[in-house]
């Protein structure tokens, strides 16, 4: 049997996902035994034109990480879609927008203004902004277009599978690769490399009835390692986050931030978090309720940390 042709690509992401492939450890040898890497910008020197030159559908598997932020990201997403038999949105950014997706609380102008004007370290009296085309004596320079909105991979092209995680854990990644290498493919469109329950299922802490009188931020306290963090007033998104990560953060006394995305039956992770928190806050008078809610400084940042482009509203409404 011929080796499977495998490509990896990063779009708007931190690069962690590309590296995370190595988390499969020694299994990497089994992987390369069955697979031929045709593109991996982080590890190997291939050029875009190499991909462009490949026949359509000639790549067996593309693990695409990162969100779609620029025209380049979009171009590459479409390119890999065309060239690949199986396209996997790998990691939270490709799957649900990820941390870059939080930029959807503003738009291009908002970002440029901040980056090129108002940051304290910026001195830009001429108000120079990046252009897609710039004439220089040597000719014309080009930059990809920066979009207003961060999109998920699936909002741009058709995606076969989704692997959540920031980054996906090595164990889960191997399960996915193994399934693909063994041609043991699940139903198209599935979220793979993750469970069907929530992080609470993997969380070893004891849980009780929850009545929250106050929220505290995790760096201000040393939480009891055996008791549900939420019950201690620390906002933990585990209850509304798909399991599969092994509750790693929680095991080191840090709250879940929700990177595995919503559990299977939940459409909007943030809305569900609102609904659940609203049920367990222990107050009935509006003033008291608001006093407690004031302790959550940035609801979107907490509730949609990894999934703003994937949420029902997808982004902030810019007037």
């Amino acid at each position: 049997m011929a080796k499977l042709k495998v490509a990896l690509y990063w779009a708007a992401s931190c690069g962690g996902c590309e590296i995370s492939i190595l988390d499969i450890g020694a299994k990497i040898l089994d992987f390369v035994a069955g697979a031929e890497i045709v593109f991996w910008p982080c590890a190997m020197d291939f050029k875009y034109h190499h991909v462009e030159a490949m026949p359509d559908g000639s790549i067996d598997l593309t693990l695409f990480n990162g969100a779609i932020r620029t025209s380049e990201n979009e171009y590459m997403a479409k390119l890999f879609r065309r060239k690949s038999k199986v396209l996997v949105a790998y990691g939270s950014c490709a799957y649900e927008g990820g941390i870059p997706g939080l930029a959807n609380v503003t738009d291009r102008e908002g970002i440029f203004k901040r980056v090129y004007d108002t940051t304290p370290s910026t001195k830009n009296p001429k108000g120079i902004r990046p252009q897609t085309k710039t004439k220089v004596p040597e000719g014309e320079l080009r930059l990809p277009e920066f979009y207003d909105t961060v999109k998920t991979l699936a909002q741009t092209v058709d995606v076969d599978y989704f692997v959540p995680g920031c980054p996906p854990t090595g164990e889960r990644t191997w399960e996915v690769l193994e399934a693909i290498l063994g041609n043991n493919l699940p139903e198209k469109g599935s979220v793979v490399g993750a469970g069907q329950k929530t992080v609470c299922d993997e969380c070893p802490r004891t849980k009780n009835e929850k009545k929250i009188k106050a929220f505290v931020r995790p760096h201000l306290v040393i939480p009891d390692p055996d008791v549900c963090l939420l019950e201690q007033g620390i906002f933990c998104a585990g209850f509304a986050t798909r399991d599969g990560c092994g509750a790693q953060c929680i095991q080191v006394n840090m709250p879940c931030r929700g990177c595995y995305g919503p559990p299977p039956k939940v459409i909007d992770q943030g809305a569900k978090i609102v609904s659940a928190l609203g049920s367990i806050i222990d107050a009935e008078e509006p003033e008291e309720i608001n006093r407690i809610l004031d302790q959550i400084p940035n609801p979107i940042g907490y509730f949609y940390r990894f999934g703003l482009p994937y949420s029902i509203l997808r982004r902030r409404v810019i007037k």
Partner: protein
Amino acid sequence: MFEPKIVCFLCKWCTYAGADLAGTSRLEYAPNGVNIRIMCSSRVDPEHILWAFDRGADGVFVGGCHPGDCHYQDGNYKTLRRIELFQRVLKQFGLENGRLRLEWVSAAEGRKFAQLMDEFTEQIRALGPIKLGSRKGGQDGGSTKKEETS
């Protein structure tokens, strides 16, 4: 004139009964809201509200029993807390808080229900049609209509 689309989630015991009373009392009011009957306002999940906005609702109305009068003891307090928190989220989303309204209407307040429907319709009319990005996560964030995915 812009005719807002409004979804109303009404608890069966108070607000839905109040809406019935408005009918029995033949109080005419704005026809923009369509009612969905649920057992208690605490059945309303913010997800439903987002879903409605995304599907083109210009306004969402949630009606429950007055505080202390909940048929299910304290369901309306859960609703109150959820909506208070959710309003904060919506504000960050750039949606006017006026598009989501939580009101307490008892079974005896048919007149109040009719007035609220008129008032809320006017309120939404003043805010104008909802503007959301395309459902494919579109670039503009400003176009009114959305294309369908899937």
